[in-house]
């Protein structure tokens, strides 16, 4: 995870370096947050823990890579079609397979989604092979200078896009009829059925929306990191960490958690060793679980 750039290390790291790294971490964290938002939405409404979340993101990342390699289409522009495609995938997955599992015990849901994850990872492995792929846009090495602060262009664009997508989704849930209906399902399953909502349809829509989030996040993340088929489980775990840190089911919490984890990873990578950085993310997770199990933004008893 994190950037490709090798940062100067040693005792005499100037303050600007910390600031630059922290900014990069926050920007990457926003994209992480969007990915985790998908997981949070799915859990908050459908009450299914998507163990194939990171794997779904790798699908989106590969689509972005292929589109760029074949047609030179910029991942930031292809974000919308990719998200739409992932929406369709998530919708069909929920309708076709997962829906019959929502009343079954949790562990069978885990097993089901683990099976989906295995299929996705190895399907991608068969098609694309084990090598890392990435997207080299024309602005890959551009940066903006604000005072002494240097901001990577690709990270900035990706983070801005993440904010736009997350804002759209928040608006959708708050202001549209379908969004309100979905929130009703999340609040009270039986109640939603009583007032005549088509819960199965709404669940499928929600799973689609969650998948669209992760699709959008994936197409932005290829700007920042390389993709391999095996990277899926890593991001599933990262999404869990973020969502639990922020508060499972809380949408602003997912973004906040993403920023927090992104920042932690970036600084830990700088201060200690890049390979130890996810240890700090897990450290935060453990602390949150113990002292604020509902997450930073979560409601008690949720």
């Amino acid at each position, binding site marked *: 995870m994190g950037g490709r750039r090798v940062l100067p290390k040693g005792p005499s790291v100037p303050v600007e370096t910390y600031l630059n790294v922290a900014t990069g971490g926050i920007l990457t964290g926003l994209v992480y947050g969007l990915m985790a938002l998908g997981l949070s939405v799915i859990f908050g409404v459908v009450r299914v823990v998507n163990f194939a979340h990171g794997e779904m993101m790798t699908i989106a990342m590969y689509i972005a890579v292929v589109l760029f390699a074949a047609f030179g289409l910029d991942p930031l522009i292809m974000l919308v079609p990719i998200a739409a495609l992932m929406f369709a995938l998530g919708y069909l997955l929920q309708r076709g*397979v997962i829906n*019959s599992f929502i009343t079954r015990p949790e562990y069978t849901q885990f*097993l*089901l989604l683990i099976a989906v994850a*295995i299929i996705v990872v190895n399907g991608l492995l068969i098609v694309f092979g084990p090598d890392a792929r990435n997207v080299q846009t024309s602005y890959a090495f551009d940066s903006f200078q604000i005072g002494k602060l240097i901001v990577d262009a690709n990270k900035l664009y990706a983070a801005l896009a993440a904010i736009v997508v997350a804002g759209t989704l928040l608006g959708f849930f708050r202001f549209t009829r379908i969004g309100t209906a979905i929130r009703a399902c999340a609040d009270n399953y039986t109640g939603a059925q009583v007032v005549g909502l088509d819960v199965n349809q709404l669940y499928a829509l929600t799973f689609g929306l969650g998948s669209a989030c992760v699709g959008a996040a994936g197409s932005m993340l290829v700007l920042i990191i390389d993709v391999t088929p095996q990277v899926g489980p890593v991001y599933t775990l990262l999404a869990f960490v973020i969502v639990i840190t922020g508060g499972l089911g809380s949408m602003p919490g997912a973004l906040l958690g993403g920023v927090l984890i992104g920042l932690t990873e970036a600084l830990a990578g700088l201060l200690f060793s890049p*390979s130890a950085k*996810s240890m700090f993310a897990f450290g935060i997770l453990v602390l949150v679980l113990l002292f604020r199990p509902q997450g930073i933004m979560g409601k008690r008893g949720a």
Partner: protein
Amino acid sequence: MIARLIEGVSRRALILIAVFVAALAIAPVFVGDYLLTVLILILYFSYTGQAWNIMMGFSGLLSLGHALYVGLGAYTAAALYVHFGIGPWIGLLAAVPLAMACGAFMAFLAFRFRVAGVYFAILTIAFAEFARIGFDHFGWVGGSGGFFLPVAQYAQNDLWRLRGAPVMFYYVMLAATVLAFLCCRILLKSRMGYFWLAIREDEQAARAAGIDTFRYKMYAVMISAGMTAFAGVFYAFFYNNLFPEQAFNILRSIELILAPMVGGLGTLFGPIIGAFLLEGLAEGLRNLLEYFGIDIPGTKQLFFGAVLLLVVVALPEGVWPWLMRRLGFVERKP
């Protein structure tokens, strides 16, 4: 003791079990090296599945981080062997308590702070990941570069130091699996076993009935962790190399829980049936693909995932409960 052990089991079932164990005991005479390795893997997953089942199947505590205990057991025994020349059976005396202590620490935090359900599962993953990254930077046992046991051609099987041919490992694992099975049966029939089932079904009701749920959940985690640590010791001496990236990987934890889940959660035969089915399936697919000359990485696992999906959709409670009804066994559902 033995009377209690076989209480409520039909004669037919007992005879079938005896035949099954006898068949496994004489199997090395008939099978080649390749099949023997497959059988060792099957037994390994039966054993670890049995250990994991104590937590999830009996007590309802979902652990997705059992690779932690495998890895701790493996590294402890291997480090003692390589650095101090201490054999694996003595090493077990350090590996098992260490894994139990680690499990107890996690469980204490979890239960003290009321971390339950999905959150508990994630906490177990977090601990395993923590250990993985920690061992990556633990130079004394090789760090991320791996830790290796000395390998040589052994003229004789040295059971005391676990150095020798696969046949010896096969019998060690067979004995462990049989012991684990008996141990789980005894535990299930004990007072504690009934407490566990009560906690699994309804923890609040169990507490209301006067069961010290905190204590019995702790016991479940510690016993499960300790049993799993032995599998780790075996793993280290069988494969002779350890990498944190492999030993503590989340995929290891998932691999380990598939057998009991597919076989039937909370049942004694579930892990064994599940291990046979899954390993048999995986190896069958491998050979089938080899036969057709398909050599693309991931193909086997793809089919594996697809079949797993089918099993989950078609037999949600697992294969064993379904098979049990078919065979007409009267083993009461625990």
